[in-house]
């Protein structure tokens, strides 16, 4: 019971963190048709910017300004980089963002070094909030939960309840028509790209000190976020949400299970002496997203909530 409650809480928090990343990616994908390979690099930038800003001022400034900075970087990338490449097709765009991820990784390594930086949870939030089954639960995780939910609600209100959201949604499906109506579509694209990157940056700000801030965090997170987007269905925000929570729970629960394959499949004669039998579910946890990806592609190639086959 204890494990279940803790895994549930941690899984939901991790899932929401994944969703902060994948929501931006999905928005950008459904609008511009480009899967931003560098998205996780913007997440990393968010964490590093937050580390610098926290050092100079305080964590609360970082919480506001680091995502804005990341958003500005993203908007610049769209304006001076991606827009140029757009004429050469989607593969060129994907390759451009791939190169960008490479570049951001290297620049981070040069500026901040190869080792993890000491980006910590702020003191004001560094206390146990409540005790469950004799174990203390850190307040920062609940704070993460709040930030993520607040972002989720804000995004939903922005997209579904405001005029700006209406225009963005229209530009997703009918960019030419929106252009004819007098809206500056390239400007909308740039803004969406910037906001998507800022969301990734925000995930970095609150996730960087919860997990770890080192130059490899982008390479670790990137593929998982892509899996989320593919499983949820390319371009579906709802799908991305469901897939994020699903993956978050799945991974957290898997880590806490130490049954091995031999325990599970002993009834078909798998002995714990064999190599396959010795693999534990916990060991399998990092592989689970990718296994799920392959499974989904077999059963339902357009993803959980995707409307179109791409």
């Amino acid at each position, binding site marked *: 019971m204890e494990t279940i409650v803790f895994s549930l809480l941690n899984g939901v928090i991790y899932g929401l963190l994944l969703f902060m990343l994948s929501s931006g990616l999905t928005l950008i994908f459904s609008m511009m048709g480009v899967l931003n390979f560098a998205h996780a690099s913007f997440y990393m930038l968010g964490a590093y910017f937050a580390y610098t800003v926290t050092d100079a001022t305080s964590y609360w400034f970082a919480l506001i300004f680091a995502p804005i900075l990341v958003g500005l970087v993203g908007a610049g990338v769209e304006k001076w980089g991606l827009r140029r490449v757009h004429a050469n097709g989607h*593969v060129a765009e994907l390759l451009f963002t791939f190169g960008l991820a490479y570049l951001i990784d*290297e620049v981070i390594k040069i500026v901040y070094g190869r080792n993890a930086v000491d980006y910590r949870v702020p003191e004001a939030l560094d206390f146990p909030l409540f005790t469950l089954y004799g174990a203390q639960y850190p307040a920062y995780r609940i704070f993460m939960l709040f930030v993520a939910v607040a972002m989720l609600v804000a995004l939903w209100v922005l997209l579904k309840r405001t005029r700006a959201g209406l225009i963005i949604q229209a530009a997703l499906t009918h960019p030419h028509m929106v252009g004819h109506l007098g809206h500056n579509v390239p400007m909308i694209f740039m803004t969406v790209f910037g906001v998507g990157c800022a969301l990734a940056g925000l995930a970095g700000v609150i996730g960087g000190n919860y997990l770890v801030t080192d130059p490899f965090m982008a390479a670790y997170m990137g593929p998982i976020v892509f899996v989320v987007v*593919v499983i949820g269905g390319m371009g579906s925000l709802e799908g991305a949400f469901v897939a994020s929570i699903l993956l978050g729970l799945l991974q957290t629960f898997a880590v806490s299970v130490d049954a091995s394959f031999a325990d599970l499949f002993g009834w078909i004669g798998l002995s714990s002496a064999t190599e396959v039998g010795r693999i534990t579910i916990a060991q399998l946890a990092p*592989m689970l997203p990718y296994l799920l990806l*392959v499974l989904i592609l077999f059963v339902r190639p357009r993803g959980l909530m995707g409307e179109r*086959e791409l």
Partner: protein
Amino acid sequence: MTDMTQDYADLAPSASAKFYGRILPILLFALLVVVIPFLGPSRTMYSLLNVMAINIVFALSYNMLLGRCGLLSFGHAVYYGLGGYCAVHAMTWIEAGTSPFWANFPVFGLPLVGFAGGALAGAIIGWPSCRRAGTPFAMISLGVAELIAAAGFMFLSFFGGEMGVSGDRMNGPALFGLSMGPVEDVYWFMAFWVVAGLVGMYAFTRTPLGKLSEATRDNPQRVQFIGYDPTRVRYLVFIAAGAFAGMAGGMSAVNYEIFTPEAVSLIPSGFVLIMAYVGGIGYFVGPILGAVLLTFMQSMLSDYTEAWLLYLGVLFISIVMFAPGGLAGIVFGVAHTARNGETGAVLKRWGGQAAGILLALAGLIVLVEVSTRWSNGYGEIFEPFGLHLTFTNPLTWVLIVVPFAAGVAILRRLSREEDPA
């Protein structure tokens, strides 16, 4: 209406055009490969050439997917790695003489084992992945690559864990009198297989399947119209590409005598993508140029600077943004203009562009080199030509900003002249 019927024989290239266009370049390449040892290269040069041979085959196999079939893969090293692992295991079987077959199997033939291993891996993994093209295919390849890389540390009997699997190439029967011990012997092994791979992959582009793969890249719907299944075409091309990647893995197994799970990870997958793209995916020779240049950069530039990966990233992004044809595209563009005789104005523009690029690069290099030394914190200082450049020295900033700004200004001006719109 008699003039509607055409004599199709006239449309086919003449025998001499076929010879100059198809056979002569390969003969020249083979000749070059044979001549190199007579120029007396050093041991370092030999090992560099051996790595180049591996990378040429690997990059060409990658281009069977990206350039010829339009499939962007982020996990091509999986087939390279799995083929290589098969070859290393075969090498240990040769050493142990596991069965009469392996006891009589020459190490020289190991790339064939890699070829088979890569093809098998491609046949198994390709089946789910090739159901989609475009961006989903790229994502699936990434997922599969992560899956195999994670499995690399789980299945110790095949991947050998962190230690990897190692073998000894100086066993089994010697073929062509090559003991495979010294690096010169390995060179002849590489020479044989790089030419074999080149011929094999070029021949593949001439087969109906090779032509269909290009058609599938350009317009899958019309391929369906004429009665072929694009998914199946992709799948078959995928298997072939996996096989040749496995062959490169087999060559690498003989060269290094060890394979570690790193070989199936995303890093070599990304590197092969960059090699092929920088070289130029639209041309058959493109990946060869890319492989030669990048292998050279990898081994030479990394001696001079720690930030060579950053330069690689800048090179890659510049190619994607400004020269989508890659190096081969630039070379053929130059050759084309030279042949058409409009050289004067064009040469002037290229001269300007080259100057702009060099200036911007100079500024960038100063910035990057000063930064890497500052970030290391060893108190080392960048001192080109006896200058003493630190972050506090105003001269440093002048050397960064002035060339960079000048270079960018020249390039912008030239692009505006070229395209007044």
